[in-house]
């Protein structure tokens, strides 16, 4: 079971009437994007995307509007056909599926949540949530039971018979999440699910969603334009710019070691307190001139926030340990520099 839940290899998406011609020109002659637009009138939406998402992982794709992140995620349930490249979901090559098999994969294995909820206004909340089951031909009694159960998961008991319009934006999006969970899919695709909500509701939903996904053990691809959100929710983050994946890594890797200026600019405003860990900023024990007089101790995975707490209570540097053995120290000066991010 070590195979990844979702695997993209060399996925390109070129939009335009002459996409195939442009694609082969790009591959054989190394045509640039501007040239593709000029010569073929084609826009490159996604450029050579390759990554793997492990089972149970939450993988965030972060980018500004127009960076191709929504296009990219729509490849994973083939709402958009790739111009070239291969997409494997749960070990099956999506491109090789027949239309019926594709519908089956969509209904059973992949759930999707949309930025603008996209609930059916003429159906009750319950029937909206039950829709993936209805498509599969699950009998009504069964799908109503599943639907009610799923609505309970997102704390929407008592709203089953309402119409979506009667609910607030945050509640509607919880219905959207319930719908995505209804057929108990292995993979969740979240297309900027919380972007249209106001900040407080967004924070609340982020936490609820994170807890829920961890509990249910879903593989999640989460699209966002908000780096804070990506850091809160994602195990790993991919940063996209103009259709290209610029960097993939954990939040800490991206914040402490941005791949280029574009990413650096993004991470500048990010609070490092809960991200950066002791092993990133610690200095070798030898660098301390005097003996270590029993200063506070912390594990190397402790975050800066915790180190500050320890450091405030003592004049001595904090001793960083790995499995009990001291491996480095963090002085007040190192700590301040670490928070600043000027020196990793």
């Amino acid at each position, binding site marked *: 079971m070590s195979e990844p839940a979702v695997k993209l290899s060399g996925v390109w998406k070129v939009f335009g009437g002459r996409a195939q011609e442009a694609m082969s020109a790009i591959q054989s002659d190394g045509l640039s994007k501007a040239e593709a637009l000029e010569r073929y009138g084609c826009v490159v939406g996604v450029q050579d995307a390759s990554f793997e998402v492990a089972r149970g992982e939450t993988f965030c794709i972060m980018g500004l509007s127009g960076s191709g992140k929504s296009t990219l995620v729509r490849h994973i*349930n083939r*709402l958009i056909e790739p111009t070239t490249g291969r997409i494997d979901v749960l070990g099956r090559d999506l491109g090789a599926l027949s*239309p019926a098999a594709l*519908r*089956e*994969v*969509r*209904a*059973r294995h*992949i*759930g*999707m949540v*949309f930025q*603008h909820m*996209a*609930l*059916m*206004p*003429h159906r009750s909340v319950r029937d909206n949530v039950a*829709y*993936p089951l209805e*498509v*599969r031909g699950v009998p009504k009694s069964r799908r109503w039971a599943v639907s009610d159960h799923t609505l309970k998961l997102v704390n929407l008991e008592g709203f089953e018979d309402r*119409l979506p319009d009667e609910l607030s934006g945050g509640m509607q999006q919880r219905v959207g999440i319930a*719908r995505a969970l209804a*057929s108990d899919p292995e993979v969740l*695709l979240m297309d900027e699910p919380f972007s249209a909500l106001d900040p407080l509701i967004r924070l609340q939903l982020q936490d609820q969603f994170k807890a829920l996904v961890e509990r249910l053990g879903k593989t999640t691809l989460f699209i966002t334009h908000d780096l804070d959100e990506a850091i809160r929710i994602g195990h790993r983050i991919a940063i996209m710019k103009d259709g290209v994946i610029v960097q993939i890594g954990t939040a800490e890797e991206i914040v402490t070691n941005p791949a280029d200026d574009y990413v650096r600019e993004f991470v500048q405003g990010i609070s490092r307190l809960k991200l950066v860990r002791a092993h990133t900023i610690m200095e070798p024990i030898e660098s301390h001139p005097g003996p270590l007089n029993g200063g506070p101790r912390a594990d190397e995975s402790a975050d800066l926030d915790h180190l500050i707490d320890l450091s405030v209570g003592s004049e001595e540097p904090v001793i960083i340990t790995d499995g009990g053995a001291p491996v480095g120290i963090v002085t007040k000066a190192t700590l301040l520099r670490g928070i600043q991010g000027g020196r990793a």
Partner: protein
Amino acid sequence: MTDIPLGAGTAPPAEAAPQVAAASEVEVDRRALDASIADFAGSNGAYYASTFHRIHEAAGGVPLTFNGAAALLGPIWAAARGVWSFFWGFLLLEIIAWVQIGRGAWGDLGADDLAQADRQADRANQFLADADAARAAGEDPARFETMADNLMRAAERSREAADAAAADALAILLTGLGLLLVLKLVQGLTANLVYERQYSAWRIAPERVPSGLRRTNVLLGIALTLAIAPLTIYKFTVESPLIEMTTFPADPDHYTLLARWLETQIDAAAAGGAGWFDTIVGALRSILNTLALALMGAPWPVVMTVICVVAWRSAGPRVAIFTAAAMAYIAFLGYWEIAMETVALVGAAVIICVIVGIPLGIWFGKSQRAYRFAEPVLDLMQTLPAFVYLIPIIAFFGTGNPPGILATIIFGMPPVIRLTALGMRGVPKSIKEAATAFGASRWKLLTDVEVPLALPSIMTGVNQTILMCLSMVVIISLIGGGGLGKVILEALQYAAKGPGLLGGVAILLCAMVIDRIVQGAFRRADHKK
């Protein structure tokens, strides 16, 4: 404070920006603006730069500038500069002035009256001759003499009128000259203002707004002026212009040949497709007969009760009471049978419109290309006057109720097609995408998402179609359709005001009852949703 930042848009942004503290300190960048105006005007750039400045500096009121070229050349200047509205406006006004001048200078102003005087004198001489003949025959010539006398006097008056008109020629000439002078003045004064507005428009869309002095424009302006002005002035100033100027030299043979050819074609088509046409007529008749049997075959108390209950259930008590009153009016005037025939006719047409129209609308809503092909046909169906297609319908399908239904369908079908297509296209893409993402097939997508969400629009289309069909009942009586339309047609033929009015009110009541019931039903469907 008077400093208006005219050149703000053209000023290089980075340099000046930081030093300026307030809007009142912003300097007008003359150079950039001048360059832009010169670029726009082409030749004579410096002149237009200075006049546009004068216009731009004006804080209020109308800035006074005089464009000599525009005053002198008038429409030709406008054409050369590509100011076409100015060209057409002043070309027409100048032609009016020139017509006045022409009438005054060489027009034969009293000619009408003189000709009349001559005719009157001729008649008078005739009467005098008659009088002589009568005298020779020994009869009383007095009657002829008085008439000749009267005519002579009339001829004298006509001659006086002709002299007066000729005397007016000078006044007309002067009016024309005055008008021309005023026009030149106005053109000179407004040309720069108009041209400045064109410059503003050019800055927004330089590729669409004409700029500069183009030789093609000059030639086009001269050609248009030559094509329009001389002939117009000739036609209005010469007393009896050439016959070619007043009537188009049409050859009546073309018309006869084409009409005869069309007629044989239609006859051949009617004979060739007779089997088809009979099948269609048969199908229409069977639908009609079923409906008619239900409405006219069932005892009238039953039909009335059912209609009232339907009105009550779908639209509430008020509409039910109105329906009962309308039916009482129809029944008491003895229109019951005829009104039911009308309802059956309209009902048959509407049923076919809906059965054919909604699938077509769904198709057109999904396929932009199909809709582009269908749209002109739909336009034709709605705008072609009914009388035009009544004739071929008679040729193909004969007369009576079934061809009437067919004509009604042609007129009534477009709204339901159009509004269904509109509704289909209005379904939010995101909801369609969501349904697809959860594994819906195309058929499921259609039945679960697209049709339900397009339903309000489709319902509006159905209602429109019903009303359009009702409006055809009088017209189809022309080709033998029965029902209330026939009552109106007969009343029209005998100019019978009373029966016509009573029948008209009956049709109106039918339309109102159906409209209220249908709308009520749709509203209820909307609420349930």
